[in-house]
């Protein structure tokens, strides 16, 4: 237990001390929530802007921490030989992975603690059936695994600098196609069909349904995310190079 706790403490400290990470995980989502709630440029239809933006940005927050921040940090740790060095300490690999998951979840809690009050302040009222929050949390956890696996998959294959570019590029693509700011329905037909298979749209669609629409999360969201959440960690663990 001690090695795990020491690792979680160090990882959390480093994550919360990296300026560029905070910009990505907290700064940009907060700016998006405020800007797009106040400036009504998003094609949100009959929904109020804030009601659409907050669930979408919560989905973005999960993606930026689990995929981009985790992936980039892991890539550089591999490049700097940190992961190799840890291999000859008593910190076991499964503990290292557990520490990274715990750190991602802790950062997500920080994000929620910032974004939700900002949204409420702007007039967001989550639609409430009793299990909505629990459902949303469960879906976010599933998405965390899917995105985390994707980030680590890239980090294990690419050189640190290439991985940095790839993770940021993927972030932009998934942001645009993921239904986070632009509803997937607004995308051209073929693109929309493709986008619906991505973990980003599955997460944002589910959060929109449960926190925005007050309905239960569509089965499609569960299925798509569950598939990604199995595929990416398995692929990552098969292909990851520690050195």
């Amino acid at each position, binding site marked *: 237990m*001690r*090695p795990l*706790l*020491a*690792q979680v*403490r*160090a990882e959390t*400290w*480093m994550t919360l*001390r*990296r300026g560029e990470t905070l910009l990505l995980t907290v700064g940009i989502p907060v700016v998006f929530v405020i800007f797009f709630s106040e400036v009504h440029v998003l094609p949100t239809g009959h929904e109020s802007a804030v009601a659409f933006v907050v669930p979408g940005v919560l989905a973005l927050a999960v993606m930026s921490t689990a995929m981009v921040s985790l992936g980039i940090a892991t890539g*550089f*740790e591999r490049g*700097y*030989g*940190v992961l*190799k*060095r840890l*291999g*000859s*300490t*008593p*910190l*076991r690999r499964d503990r290292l992975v557990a520490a990274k998951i715990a750190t991602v979840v802790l950062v997500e809690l920080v994000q929620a603690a910032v974004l939700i009050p900002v949204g409420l302040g702007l007039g967001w009222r989550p639609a409430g059936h009793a299990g909505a929050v629990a459902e949303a949390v469960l879906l976010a956890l599933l998405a965390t695994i899917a995105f985390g696996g994707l980030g680590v998959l890239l980090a294990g294959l690419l050189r640190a600098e290439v991985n940095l570019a790839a993770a940021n590029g993927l972030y932009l693509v998934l942001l645009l196609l993921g239904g986070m700011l632009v509803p997937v329905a607004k995308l051209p037909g073929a693109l929309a069909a493709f986008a619906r298979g991505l973990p980003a749209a599955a997460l944002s669609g589910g959060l929109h349904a449960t926190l925005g629409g007050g309905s239960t999360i569509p089965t499609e969201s569960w299925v798509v995310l569950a598939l990604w959440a199995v595929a990416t960690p398995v692929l990552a663990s098969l292909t990851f190079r520690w*050195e």
Partner: protein
Amino acid sequence: MPAVECTDLVLRYGATTAVDGVSLQADAGEVVAVLGPNGAGKTTTIETLEGYRTPDAGRVRVLGLDPRAEHRALVSRIGVMLQSGGVYPMLSPRRALELFRGYYPDPEPTDALLELVGLRAVESTPWRHLSGGEQQRVSLALALVGRPEVVFLDEPTAGVDPEGRIGLRAIISGLRERGTCVLMATHELTEAERLADRMVVVGAGRVLAHGTPAQLAEAGGDRPSVRFTSRAGLDTAAIAAALGAGVVEDGNGTYTLDTEPSPRLTADLATWLADHDAALVELRTTASLEETYLSLVGSDNDKPDGDPAPVRRRIRGTR
């Protein structure tokens, strides 16, 4: 049971054989240097002992354990200093040590380690802002956190200034006194000679020679010779006449006498030099380790063209 034991180790990377039948061992309280030029297989050998690679053939044991199969039992008893990197760039020496302390059951106190490696003044500076020598010392301290029984050091003096080298010598002496086994890879002969109880000279993946520095020095010389350094361009014929021995100037004021060393010879040489107002800069009357090393490594790596100069240049230029 030796602390570190490796028998007929073979390791290949694709078609390249990096280690080709290396055997070595080191006991508790012993400092052993694996010495050789770059590409000799030093790092591959050490990393196999650390459990990073699976041998293609041969047997390795550290503290009686298989570094791969019994990795988990072994890691808390060894300390590792990689050739480079290995530390979170954001962490200061203090934070990195605090983190590593969390991994081990009975860690050294942070302050004592910072003191030991001389990082007190920069203990709060992030690793990425430290000098190369300071980064090496962080790696060294991290290798010692868990009070290891065996310490592996890969090029511990690379980029370390003279003061740091003196510090490293003191630390290694301390480890030896505590009964720790130290196995270090280096391409720096002088450091190996100063630090190690025994040396294993490797080249092209094979052990070329092993023994104490004194044994190796003797092994290399066909017979003892006398070398001295003074002003360039001395009259070698006059020296030969005065000492009764042949004299050759190798260039740059280094002279080799074709005779056995003796107290009389030393006195005569000093007298002759004094009479000719030439300073005696250096005098060596025994075979040197450097010559042994160069003959070993050179013969294995170079075309036998009979000219030792290119060998020497190449070995010094392998940093």
